[in-house]
């Protein structure tokens, strides 16, 4: 018993797969992305158009100024004065040695280079999380390197290195040196102050709190002024440090207070059980702090310390107010050269200086973010 209607292919039953249709254009690919991220609403669309207009208005002229219309090499400022629509990189190129070394004697500049290379190598050792024996690196960086840098830069009769007066120092290496002194001295001082602030002894605590709050409450410039004008008055006649050393003292004392607050944050975040466990093992205060608490607390605050260091590095520009010739001061000084006088010189110089500081600070902040992620990974459950 067959029904003809059943044998005939039923029109509503699929016998072959339908051809695959492309996804709707607004749900995948570039258009969908644009719709979700650029034109999700009328307001968003208007903002996109405005933002694009802003970019078009700013970026092509800036790129043109910095590259196509720029003067890359010239013996003096005449060419730059003739082409005022572009940067004058020739000025930067010719002043580069001044920017790097100030008036440091030409024949001795290898000493600055060597110091910078050793310092850079040590910093990489110290900051690279998987580097072997970082403790040795830290010891070298915080103790041996400052002594070596002092001998190399200043000179010493023992090593047959001629003395170079600090009056001649200037440029990038002075900026780096100031930052280095700040970090090398502020970290131990800051740890001491942080421990003092958390101490149960009221006098120690009060002294630390007063110091930290005092320094954090005043501008860096006034600390520099104080180091420059008041330090010589407070010391016996003839004991006053070199004019170059005074701002360094001010920088270290200033940075220590900020470092102390960072370290205190780390100490506070350590579980009470860690203290109790260390005490139960019979460790005394120094061992408890050195072996149990500080290693954990300092690792936790590495991002904060790096952040502090970025601020410190930017603040080193202020030391020129007391006569130190840091990098920015050499740039400003170079503007006064009448050979290069012209309207494009100042923007070029500032652009170069901004690039220099940006590269350093941005690299540090990236490192800080990476460390934060790394630390967060271990602590997250």
């Amino acid at each position, binding site marked *: 018993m067959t029904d003809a209607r059943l044998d005939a292919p039923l029109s509503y039953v699929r016998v072959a797969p339908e051809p695959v249709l492309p996804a709707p254009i607004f749900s995948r690919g570039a258009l969908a992305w644009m719709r*979700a*991220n*650029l034109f*999700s609403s009328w307001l*968003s669309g208007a*903002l*996109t158009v405005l*933002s*694009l207009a*802003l*970019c078009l208005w700013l970026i092509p002229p800036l790129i043109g100024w910095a590259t196509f219309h720029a003067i890359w090499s010239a013996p003096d400022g005449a060419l730059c004065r003739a082409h005022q629509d572009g940067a004058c990189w020739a000025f930067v190129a010719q002043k580069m040695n001044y920017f790097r070394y100030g008036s440091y004697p030409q024949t001795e500049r290898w000493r600055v280079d060597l110091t910078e290379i050793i310092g850079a190598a040590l910093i990489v050792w110290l900051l690279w999380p998987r580097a072997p024996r970082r403790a040795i690196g830290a010891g070298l960086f915080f103790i041996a390197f400052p002594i070596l840098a002092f001998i190399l830069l200043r000179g010493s009769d023992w090593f047959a290195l001629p003395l170079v007066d600090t009056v001649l120092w200037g440029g990038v290496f002075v900026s780096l040196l100031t930052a280095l002194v700040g970090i090398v001295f502020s970290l131990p001082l800051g740890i001491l102050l942080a421990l003092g602030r958390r101490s*149960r*002894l*009221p*006098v*120690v605590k009060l*002294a630390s709190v007063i110091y930290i*709050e*005092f320094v*954090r*409450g*005043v*501008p*860096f*410039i*006034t600390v520099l*002024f*104080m180091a420059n*004008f*008041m330090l*010589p*008055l*407070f*010391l*016996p*006649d003839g004991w006053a440090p070199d004019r170059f050393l005074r701002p360094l003292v001010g920088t270290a004392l200033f940075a220590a207070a900020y470092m102390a607050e960072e370290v205190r944050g780390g100490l506070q975040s350590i579980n009470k059980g860690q203290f109790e466990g260390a005490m139960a093992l019979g460790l005394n205060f120094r061992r408890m702090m050195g072996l149990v608490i500080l290693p954990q607390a300092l690792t936790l605050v590495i991002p904060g310390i790096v952040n502090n260091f*970025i601020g410190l590095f*930017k*603040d080193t*520009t*202020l030391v020129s*107010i007391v006569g130190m010739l840091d990098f*920015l001061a050499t740039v*400003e000084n170079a*503007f006064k050269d009448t050979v290069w006088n012209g*309207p494009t010189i*100042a*923007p070029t110089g*500032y652009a170069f*200086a*901004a690039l220099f*500081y*940006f590269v350093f*600070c*941005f690299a540090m*902040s990236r490192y800080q973010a990476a460390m934060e992620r790394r630390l967060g990974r271990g602590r997250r459950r």
Partner: protein
Amino acid sequence: MAETARSSAGSLLYDPRIRGYGYQALLVAALIGLALTAGYNAYVNMQARGIPMGFGFWDQTAGFDISQTLIPYSSLSTYGRAFWVGLTNTAMVAAISIALATPLGFAVGVARLSPNWILARIALVYVEIMRNTPLLLQLLFWYNAVLKALPGPRQSIQFSSLVFLNNRGLYIPRPQFDAGAGWIGAALLAGIVGALAYRLQARRRQALTGQRAPVALVAAALCIGLPAIVYLAAGRPVSFELAQLSGFNLRGGVQVPPELAALVFGLVTYTAGFIAEIVRAGVLAVSGGQSEAASALGLHRGLTMKLVVIPQAMRLITPPLTSQYLNIVKNSSLAVFIGYPDLVQVFAGTVLNQTQAAVQVMAITMGVYLVISLAVALALNLYNARSVMKER
């Protein structure tokens, strides 16, 4: 325990309490010794160099001019007067910068969180540039490379002949208050009081009945509408004097000197970068469950932000925001680099150089900043105590 402590004198050394006293006594002795030595050295050195000891210089004639003063001052005024000039200038710069940096920073912070990709990128680039270059560099750039390089008064950049910008500064219209202008001020005051009262009443009603009132609308009407009505009713007593070119210079209007313009602009743009990050971090720190719960209750996106996210974010934003305000106050001391007469430039600069009284001048200068910092810290602590989350 007590017996063993008494048993030998040597174990006294190992009593943590006694050792604590010992350490503290040592510290006190060291600090006092340091202070006495420093004081004695300062006394000897100052005598040897003929530096004045007391604060007698305060009432002496200063003998130098200050380019911009908010209070009457001439070169015949005293050093004390110069101090007040510097302090008022610092306060003015800080107040203007805070007032401008807050909205800019919040706007950039919100733009960073915007779902609009390109807007978020622009905000990110802005924040990274501002935070990763020194403030001093930015100030010098705005002052030397931008404002000083502008054309002279005859070729001023104009904004519909209301605002002029040239190498002598920024010229904005000067409001002139005729008789009856005081009524507008009174109306504004009344509007603010009325708005606050209405807000209080609306909150009370919401707590009792759950009905919401259009507080923002009414407040705007009271604070803007009321003065506007009075302005018209009193016969338009406020007019604006525009700057006009006469000869080689602009006359009339308010002249903002390039130093002040560069300082405020630099401080505002720099600090806004930091405020933006604070705002962003604050909003992101409010957990996602909060806005999900708000959506589940039926609140739309705007109300979720207003009633759930922002109140919680503000608690996280306020402390670092306050420290940014303090940073503005402290960073305004960078005025000394571009020659704007703030407290540090006038007092710790010129007055210190003229009188040589380094210790006194620096003590006063640092004291001022310290008092401001401590006062703000105290206010912040009070706020924190009030707004801390009530936990079970």
